[in-house]
């Protein structure tokens, strides 16, 4: 059969209705997806707007709250502890605005083509570029997954629970959510867990921040951080890597396709992405404000767990309740991200190898997809058991590495979103392209600035 162009087929197919053309036989994956689409169809036909929104929410919120992960929250808290309230608060909003632009493109490409990012790059640009993209993803995902287990370990250690339990908890969670053979079930479980990302906002409120200073920081983006230029670059690159990353691109596009979104759902897909970004920005700012409670109390040199012992430090400054909420938040952030990042690994591996890659398949039918999901988490879990690992450094550098490798994935995403043969009338507008290319340039400069500056310092050239 000759290769097909999804957009060309859409000319003969309605957005969500019946088609007169003969159809190939249904697979179990099709059957599961069509049951979800049946509910969407009913809600739309009966004008049940809130039900429709509830049914179509998911990939956007999960991508955004999944990225409010352990290293991101540690990064925000470190920024707050190092610089207090100031430039970084509005900077978080800017980075989430960038994330909305990027993630909307992922959702749109996934809904129009019904294919994941890895599959499209591989098929459209060839195996070399496809595997490069998958390789970048697997590398950053492994490092980030280690950082997620680190976050769970930090959170649990506050309750005097050891690293072994942290590793076991993460693996059990991955295996539990993967059982069931339905995308819908997996998505709803992870969404239910992601709600607890709000604990960081609760922690921030409990520290009783000076709201005048918070408002001043948002309005004036000041005070601008002083001190070490390299530390500032690290935290800028790390904050970007805390909001836009390669795994989010793979995840949201593949999850949108797996959920069965169609061009008729683009409006709700955008709501999903924006709601996710607003919640994530709110909770991210919460982590920074909570961390800022440590500013002026030796916050820049947090002791315990190789410099990442935020709950312990918060206990001394703000009390046991704040520390407990922050520790629980870290456990949640790490746990949700382990699930979403493992899923993006599974999607990428399945798409690039060309085997079944959907939560709507049984474990037997999609063994590679499920195997990659569990395997990635397993490797990361083993690494955190190594005694004396530099936990804060791993967490921050995981974000920086994601920032450095992100421009490549973004450029392919922009090319796919502009591909009129694939996207038809849903291709990018000129305005979207300008914004997206500006984001790529900005991220490239920030990543390169930290990489080059820190390298030159390390080899004593500056």
């Amino acid at each position, binding site marked *: 059969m000759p*290769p097909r162009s999804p957009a060309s087929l859409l000319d003969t197919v309605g957005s969500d209705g019946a088609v007169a053309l003969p159809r190939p036989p249904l697979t179990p994956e*099709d*059957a599961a997806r069509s049951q979800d689409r049946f509910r969407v169809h009913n809600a739309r036909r009966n004008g049940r707007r809130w039900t429709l929104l509830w049914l179509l929410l998911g990939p956007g919120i999960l991508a955004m709250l999944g990225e409010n992960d352990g290293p991101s929250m540690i990064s925000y808290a470190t920024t707050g502890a190092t610089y207090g309230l100031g430039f970084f608060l509005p900077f978080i909003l800017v980075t989430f605005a960038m994330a909305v632009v990027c993630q909307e493109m992922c959702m749109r490409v996934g809904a129009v083509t*019904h294919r994941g990012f890895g599959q499209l790059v591989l098929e459209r640009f*060839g195996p070399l570029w496809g595997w490069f993209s998958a390789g970048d993803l697997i590398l950053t995902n492994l490092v980030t997954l280690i950082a997620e287990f680190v976050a769970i370990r930090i959170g649990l250690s506050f309750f005097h629970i050891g690293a072994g339990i942290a590793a076991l908890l993460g693996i059990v969670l991955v295996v539990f959510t993967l059982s069931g053979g339905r995308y819908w079930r997996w998505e709803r479980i992870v969404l239910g867990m992601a709600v607890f990302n709000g604990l960081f906002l609760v922690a921030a409120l409990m520290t009783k921040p000076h709201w005048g200073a918070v408002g001043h920081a948002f309005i004036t983006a000041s005070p601008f951080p002083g001190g070490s230029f390299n530390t500032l670059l690290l935290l800028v690159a790390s904050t970007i890597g805390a909001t836009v990353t390669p795994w989010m691109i793979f995840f949201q596009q593949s999850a949108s396709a797996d959920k069965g979104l*169609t061009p008729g759902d683009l409006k709700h897909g955008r709501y999903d992405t924006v709601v996710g970004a607003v919640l994530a920005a709110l909770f991210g700012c919460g982590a920074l404000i909570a961390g800022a409670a440590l500013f002026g109390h030796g916050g820049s040199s947090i002791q315990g767990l190789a410099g990442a012992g935020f709950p312990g430090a918060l206990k001394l400054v703000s009390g046991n309740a704040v520390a407990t909420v922050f520790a629980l938040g870290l456990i949640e952030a790490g746990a949700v991200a382990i699930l979403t990042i493992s899923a993006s690994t599974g999607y990428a591996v399945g798409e690039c190898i060309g085997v079944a890659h959907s939560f709507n398949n049984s474990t037997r039918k999609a063994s590679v997809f499920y195997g990659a999901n569990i395997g990635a988490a397993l490797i990361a879990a083993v690494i955190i058991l190594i005694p004396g690992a530099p936990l804060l*450094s791993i967490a921050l550098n995981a974000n920086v*590495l994601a920032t450095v490798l992100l421009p*490549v994935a973004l450029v392919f995403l922009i090319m796919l979103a502009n591909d009129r043969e694939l996207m038809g009338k849903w291709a990018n507008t000129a305005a979207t392209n300008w914004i997206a290319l500006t984001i790529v340039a900005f991220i490239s400069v920030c990543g390169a600035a930290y990489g080059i500056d820190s*390298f030159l310092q390390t080899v004593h050239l500056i």
Partner: protein
Amino acid sequence: MTASEEQELVMFLERDQLVADTSQPVARLVLSRRMSVALWTLRVFAVVVSAMVIYTFVSQLAH
């Protein structure tokens, strides 16, 4: 699954959503020379900067 049940379910999926369709590859794009050079430049940039970040991280570990 009976034929009528299958017909009922299939009504709610678009044709190009079916596994039979998504498993067919889309046509390969022919990249212009300029685009290939731009992509390779970006790739080399990403690899070099990543190597710098990893080197710095490992050096910090050693100290």
